[in-house]
């Protein structure tokens, strides 16, 4: 059966199950998650540590680390005229989608950067993969400009370079090019492409509001501050104008002031680039600031989805209510949620929240609740609400 | 839940045991070492010391003929050059191997502890001097330095043991020093100092007790490598004289007997096969054991 996606939607995650096979047993990390992301919107994915937020975002880019395995489900990506099911694609196709259509920003910016390569090398990698043609075109333009002014010898060299770059544009994987790139002296022609990429990386860093980008491009990750490193990682993710940005707690490890700057940056960039964002966080304050809609996760389930305003004004799932009550606010009583997050190796039967829920009923411990749409666009997975 | 009632130590022990059970290699290691311990303990029964011989480590010989004789009921593994009994040598050589391993490890540990503790506890210029010295010995190819030591001391088993002690301690000193640097920062050491404990008491009672555990494990797992080094020196002719129950020496004795004649090229196979199998298996056992423990104790490999 052909799966379809509506034109206004960008990404449709349907009934996703992910298990981790560990020594201790099978961890059911994602237990039937469905999510819908519209074009151009920011969806917040909220929940406590270990509820499966990160795994969900890694599933969308199909990079769940072993021993994790995607058991079943569909992840549909809107590709203009048709829907692509990401879980049914081969590695080649996925490599073309990753970084170009979907890219990711990670929680630990330092960990996400390879310590032995400079900023240009790492950001440039994405450009080389997905924007090679554009870069080559720029090189050719420069050559066109230089050729008329050059003397005979240089003109000859430039013409050779032009031929090589034309070939690189049309047939980037041809064996003759690969051989050429390994011959010393002759492979100097690559310098032009490298220059072009470096220029583009500087430009990207400038957009990220990094001071002195000319110097920063040649730095190694250990020379960057945490905030700078995160800006570089975001630059890396946005370098190819992705349609979907997965932001996995991008501000969690940063100072509060830098956090605010990065949030502002993401919001500006989103407006400029018209990307959709899946913003994973445990911080409800951040959600209020940046998200259009919110999905609340608990122990591998999405328990409630609604627009941000509704979630804060009219939380319907008991977990969402408890979560909101647990935010310390001046003049209000602070209530923590009783009990602890269950180990997903032996999750509670029925509704996974029932051992901690103040409104639990007998059925809650037996039957897994269905998702009910209580208002338009407001989904809740709880026995309190009838379908 | 049941798991919660157990103390962390028991839990840890259980974890180690389950990991050992799951790894066939570590079981093989334990079995091999157990086997050799049994041989060493039962040596007087397995290979009777001839009557009238007071040193059990001298191989009994049946004649002075220089050509090795193939295995026979009297000589299970055959005889080496000058009719030394190979079976007897292999069995009693096990004791020699354990003796070398234990003495060298203990020696390394003592010097390493002394240097590492002094440097680590006092720090400053003492530490700087000790560590520079340690680095130089540590950086030098150990076996070559040991060879030089044995040469000037005169070849013998004791020289080998002493030489291996003299070149082997730096790695212990380095580990102990860094352990002590770590433990020194702990609160209870500060507290002990604050109530006026003497330096000696602080070092022995409070620091060493806490630092020694990983080092002892490390030391015991070094045995394989040490026995291998000793055997290599013995093989080069720097060990005990011919006729001593030492595996390396026995292989050295067999070097002239790789090729017999055109009809029977491998006619002397038994001279180098048996002692070689003993050394190899012994070292393999220790290395398997060491490998298993490293895997189990290495926190980075534990997750999964």
């Amino acid at each position, binding site marked *: 059966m052909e799966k379809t996606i509506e034109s206004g939607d960008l990404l449709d995650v349907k009934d996703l199950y992910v298990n981790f096979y560990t020594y201790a047993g099978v961890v059911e990390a994602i237990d039937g998650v469905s999510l819908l992301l519209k074009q151009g919107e920011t969806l917040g994915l909220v929940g406590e540590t270990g509820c499966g937020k990160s795994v969900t975002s*890694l599933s969308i880019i199909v*990079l769940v680390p072993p021993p994790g395995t995607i058991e079943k489900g569909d992840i549909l990506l809107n590709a203009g005229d048709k829907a692509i099911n990401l879980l049914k694609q081969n*590695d080649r196709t996925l*490599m*073309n989608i*990753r*970084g170009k259509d979907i*890219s*990711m920003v*990670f929680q630990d910016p330092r*960990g*996400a950067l*390879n*310590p*032995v390569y400079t900023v240009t090398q790492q950001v440039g*990698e*994405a450009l080389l993969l*997905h924007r090679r043609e554009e870069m080559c075109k720029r090189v050719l333009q420069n050559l066109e400009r230089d050729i008329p002014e050059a003397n005979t010898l240089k003109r000859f060299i430039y013409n050779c370079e032009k031929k090589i770059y034309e070939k690189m544009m049309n047939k980037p994987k041809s064996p003759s090019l690969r051989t050429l790139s390994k011959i010393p002296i002759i492979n100097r022609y690559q310098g032009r492409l490298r220059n072009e990429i470096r220029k583009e990386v500087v430009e990207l860093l400038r957009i990220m509001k990094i001071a002195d980008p000319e110097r920063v491009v040649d730095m*190694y990750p250990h020379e960057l501050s945490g905030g700078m490193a995160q800006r570089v*990682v975001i630059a890396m*993710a946005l370098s190819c104008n992705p349609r979907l940005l997965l932001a996995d707690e991008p501000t969690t490890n940063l100072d509060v002031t830098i956090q605010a700057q990065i949030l502002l940056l993401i919001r500006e960039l989103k407006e400029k680039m018209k990307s959709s964002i899946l913003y994973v966080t445990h911080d409800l304050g951040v959600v209020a600031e940046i998200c259009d809609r919110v999905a609340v996760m608990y122990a591998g389930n999405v328990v409630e989805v609604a627009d941000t305003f509704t979630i804060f004004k009219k939380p319907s799932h008991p977990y969402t209510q408890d979560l909101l009550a647990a935010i310390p606010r001046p003049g209000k009583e602070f209530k923590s949620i009783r009990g602890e997050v269950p180990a997903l190796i032996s999750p509670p039967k029925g509704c996974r929240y029932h051992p901690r829920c103040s409104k639990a009923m007998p059925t809650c411990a037996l039957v897994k609740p269905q998702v009910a749409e209580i208002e338009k666009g407001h989904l809740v997975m709880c026995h309190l609400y009838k379908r | 839940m049941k798991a919660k009632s157990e103390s962390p130590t028991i839990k840890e022990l259980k974890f180690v045991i389950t990991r050992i059970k799951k790894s066939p*290699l570590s079981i093989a290691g334990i079995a091999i070492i157990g086997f050799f311990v049994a041989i060493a303990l039962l040596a007087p029964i397995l290979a009777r010391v001839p009557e009238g011989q007071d040193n059990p480590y001298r191989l009994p010989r049946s004649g002075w003929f220089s050509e090795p004789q193939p295995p026979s009921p009297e000589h299970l593994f055959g005889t080496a050059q000058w009719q030394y009994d190979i079976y007897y040598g292999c069995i009693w050589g096990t004791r020699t191997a354990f003796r070398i391993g234990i003495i060298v490890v203990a020696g390394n540990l003592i010097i390493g502890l002394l240097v590492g503790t002094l440097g680590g506890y006092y720090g400053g210029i003492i530490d700087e001097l000790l560590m*520079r010295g340690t680095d*130089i*010995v540590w950086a*030098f*190819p*150990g*076996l*070559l*330095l040991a*060879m*030089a*030591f044995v*040469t*000037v*001391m*005169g070849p013998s088993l004791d020289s080998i043991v002493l030489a291996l002690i003299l070149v082997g301690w730096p790695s212990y000193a380095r580990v102990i020093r860094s352990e002590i640097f770590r433990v020194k920062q702990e609160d209870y050491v500060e507290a002990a100092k604050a109530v006026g404990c003497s330096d000696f008491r602080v070092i022995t009672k409070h620091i060493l007790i806490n630092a020694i555990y990983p080092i002892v494990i490390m030391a015991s797992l070094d045995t*394989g490598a040490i026995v*291998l080094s000793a055997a*290599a020196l013995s*093989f*080069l*002719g720097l060990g005990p004289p011919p006729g001593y129950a030492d595996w390396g020496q026995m*292989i050295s004795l*067999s*070097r002239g007997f*790789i*090729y*017999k004649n055109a009809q029977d090229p*491998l006619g002397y*196979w038994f001279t*180098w096969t048996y002692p*070689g199998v003993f*050394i*190899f298996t012994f*070292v393999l056992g220790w*290395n398997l054991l060491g490998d298993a423990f490293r895997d189990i104790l290495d926190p*980075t*490999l534990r997750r999964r």
Partner: protein
Amino acid sequence: MGMRAYIIRRLLLLIPTIIGVTLLIFSVVQVLSPEQRAALYITSEQQADDIDAIIEKYHLRDPVYIQYFVWITQVLQGNLGYNVKSPSGRVLQNIINRAPATIELTIIAAPVIILSGIALGVTSAVHRDKLIDHVTRVTSIIGWSFPSFWLGILLLAIFYAALGWVGPGRLNPDASVFIITPPFTRYTKLNTIDGLLNGQLWITVDALKHLILPVASLTVQSIALIVRVMRSSMLEALTKGYIVSARAKGLGQKEVINKHARRNALIPVVTLAGMLSAGLLTGVVITETIFSIPGLGSYAAHMALPPPDIAGVLGFTLFTGVLFVIVNLIVDVAYAYIDPRIRLG
């Protein structure tokens, strides 16, 4: 700090290290009596009658620091003493004569160790817990436990005694005669290269054939060591965040392993290089002895056998010690090149 500043600093550090190494070697010999130490400088039998004159000349009864100073001055002038055993003569000359055989052996062994060790380690880690990983791990632990002298004997027994493929030594008897007979010129004293330079390909082939078994027995243990370290550091590198982030950029599994994981995983292996060169220098002593290769290793073993030739053993230890310090310097520079974080230091 740039690469150049780092190298200069490392070069300056070389001086105290070499002083330390020479002190260490010097102190080993202090166990002996002045008369025994005088043997170092005996050049002829006539001189042997007048030990006191030698003791006097080289200050062997003076305080230790004067002795060290006298000794190190002699060493710096190229006087490492005189061999009494065959070959007799200046130790330095004997070492230089013996070096080519050892250079030939180690120059082939080192790349074999590094390349195969890294390749096997990476393969093992990438296919973790698959059949190829299990086979590599078991083989490497066996190789690691294999006494190299026993391996040499087994190889000789199989390929020389039983199969008759290739014998000990550097060349077959007829080839050995051929290379010392004019018009064959020994330009480099490395038989493999001299064969090519003289247009005698069969000499090169024969020399290479004779190198196979020694190289095998010399490399097995070190390969096993690299495989183990490379495997575990590769496994660690593969869990790092930058691996996922590189994949998220759109790189393929193979590119990520080759470009991102391997380079990081190499860092711990580079620190092993010092240990490896120590292993090579030690292994050469045993291997050359077994395969009767007239190199530095068999020279040292011969000099150490009782009655020992102190000058020979001391000279060899000094030579390898200094060589080793230089190798470590190169390793450190390579380390800084691979890991940019070191240069800051």
